[in-house]
């Protein structure tokens, strides 16, 4: 972490190969810009994301984590994302106990929604940045 605080943010995103990762590829091809703090890990399906990965990311020092998959009903693996939704909801409860519910987010982005992907990650990054700065001032 450097002093300016400009580089000190790391956000890890788990993106499913069939929807969100495809959207991120499209965002790249369209030369859309989003914060470089966001780094993706490709998983075959959002249901591959073990809640332990999220916890591990926070332990390792990530400031926030998001899990993103196909819209409900559109999962390539039929209903993997429903499992993800329940797991992440349970995990959020746990995070809430430690007052860090805001550090975890789940959202759906289809392969066509490059713009939505960029909006989602940019907003999430801004929120995390703001919360972090507020914490520093306090």
């Amino acid at each position, binding site marked *: 972490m450097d002093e300016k605080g400009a*580089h000190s943010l*790391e956000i*890890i995103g788990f993106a499913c190969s*069939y*929807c969100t990762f*495809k959207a*991120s*590829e499209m*965002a*790249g*091809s369209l*030369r*859309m*810009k*989003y*914060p*470089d703090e966001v*780094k*993706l*890990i*490709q*998983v*075959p*399906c959002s*249901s*591959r*994301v*073990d*809640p*332990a*990965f999220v916890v*591990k*990311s926070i332990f*390792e*020092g*990530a400031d926030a984590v998001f899990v993103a998959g196909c819209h409900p*009903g*559109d*999962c*390539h*693996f*039929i*209903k*993997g994302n429903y*499992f993800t939704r329940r*797991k992440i909801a349970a995990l959020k409860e746990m995070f809430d106990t430690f007052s860090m519910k805001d550090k975890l987010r789940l959202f759906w982005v*289809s*392969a*066509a*929604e490059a713009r939505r992907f960029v909006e989602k990650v940019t907003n999430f990054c801004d929120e995390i940045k703001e919360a972090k700065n507020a914490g520093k001032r306090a």
Partner: protein
Amino acid sequence: MKTGIFICHCGHNIKHTVDVGRVREYFSAFPHVALCRDYPFVCSEPGQDMIRESIEKQGLDRVVIASCTPSLHDDLFKDLLRKSRLNPFLLRRVGIREHCSWVGDDLERNTEKAIRLIRAGLYSAAHYVPLEEKQVEVTKSALVLGGGVSGLSAALFLSKMGLQVYLVEKEATLGGHVRSLRDIWPMKRDGEALIEEMEGELRARGTVEIFTSTTLSAFEGSFGNYRATLATPSGGRGVVAGGVIVAIGFTPFDARVKGELNYGRDERIMTTIDFERGAERLSLPDKPRVAILHCVGSRDEQVGRPYCSRICCINALRVGEAVKERYKDSYVECFYMDVRAHPRGGEEFFEETQEKGVLFTRGNIAEIVPGAKGLLLRGEDTLLGEVFEREFDLAVLSIGMGPATDARSLSSLLKITLDKDSFFLEAHVKLRPYDTAVKGIFIAGTCAGPKDTEEAISHGRASAVKLFGFLSPGYAMVDPFIAVVDGKRCSGCRMCERACVAKAIRYDEAKRIAQVEEAACMGCGLCNSTCPSSSIVLRGYVDRAIDDEIGALVEAI
């Protein structure tokens, strides 16, 4: 372990916002990294030769290629590893173009991001093991959904190549919208005759089964062996198809949505389709005044159609020409935003209609008011910036194309994606325009976006050629990313069995452990993340690899 890292400049695409030299230096000092090189185009012939030579000379056992996104050129690089006698699953692709150099402008920060991304790839590749691709037999048959021109042209090609074709049409007759066209521009052909010709040729072939008034009710399986259930008038029918071509066409824009145009409430207001079908039944005065409205249901955010439908300008021009030919002294005025006479010869046709006396006014029509004597059109001339009111005897609306009504339900059934306008999305705009993200499912014709007849026919044929290329070897290689059980650690809690969507996990009563049926496993990894002891793992995405990837992304540089 000997890892080789190859960083691509992609010309200037990566180099201009990532300091490639610094990345190379950073990794050169890494333990287990035998060599780290950068190259202008890794995918080029000399680039490939360089990788191959390095693998053979240095005896590399892991290859990390940092270049474009992993889904591009994947087969090319896998083949390269095979040729270098290295297992293709020891390759790790890192996307530093779509995910780094193209999405950020700052050289410093992009370089740091690239280093982190490549490091994540490097750490995770350390856990890779050689995997064997499985060869599965494919059924040399194709399911074509939609019996319009593009579906027919796909079916014709596939059956000619000797494949069994199942052609499914939801209407009672084949041909779709083209059947009702009288005069297809620029061929000057009758739509019905064209369809009859294609259908006749198709029916003469023994390897084609045509289902009319039929819809797809269930769909499962994987590339090479898709199992589809068809709801035919005589009951359900199951077919096995190696691949699918989706050609379900379009829906014409319903002009009634734009209430201010009063379509459907007055006979003198008609669409281009109505005009095509019933122009001769019109009773117009000797010197008729005809208004033609472009872009009805196209380039219109208010009705949720922001795109250009490509065909409607030509249709509007054809109406103008037809009126001028029948009534020499007619007054024909087109109201346009921009004239986009799309296909070849379109611009010349635009010129011709102008010479024939069709007038063009750049403007939007706000309202059509039917009156006893005529239709009153109110609008704004956007070149002069003036509001006008004019009387006409007939108004023709050049309507655009919308997605097919069952596009959404079919996309859920086949698990293929729709774009923002509900047309089917191609896998890559330029490199894979006919493919979908699902292997063996192709899109053809207007269900993939507005097209004219000629384009729809060639699009159908192109998709058919692609599918034939996939099926012709008679076998396919399947990615070995399936779940495996560690028998020693499995406690037999059966959580994975309950979770598995594909029903690929079976409980072995004798051994009291879970077992995976390889052929049924889809490779989603749900079981892996459900297992309390991680004793069932998804090959290629094992826990340790992802754990290390996480660490590598946040670790200090």
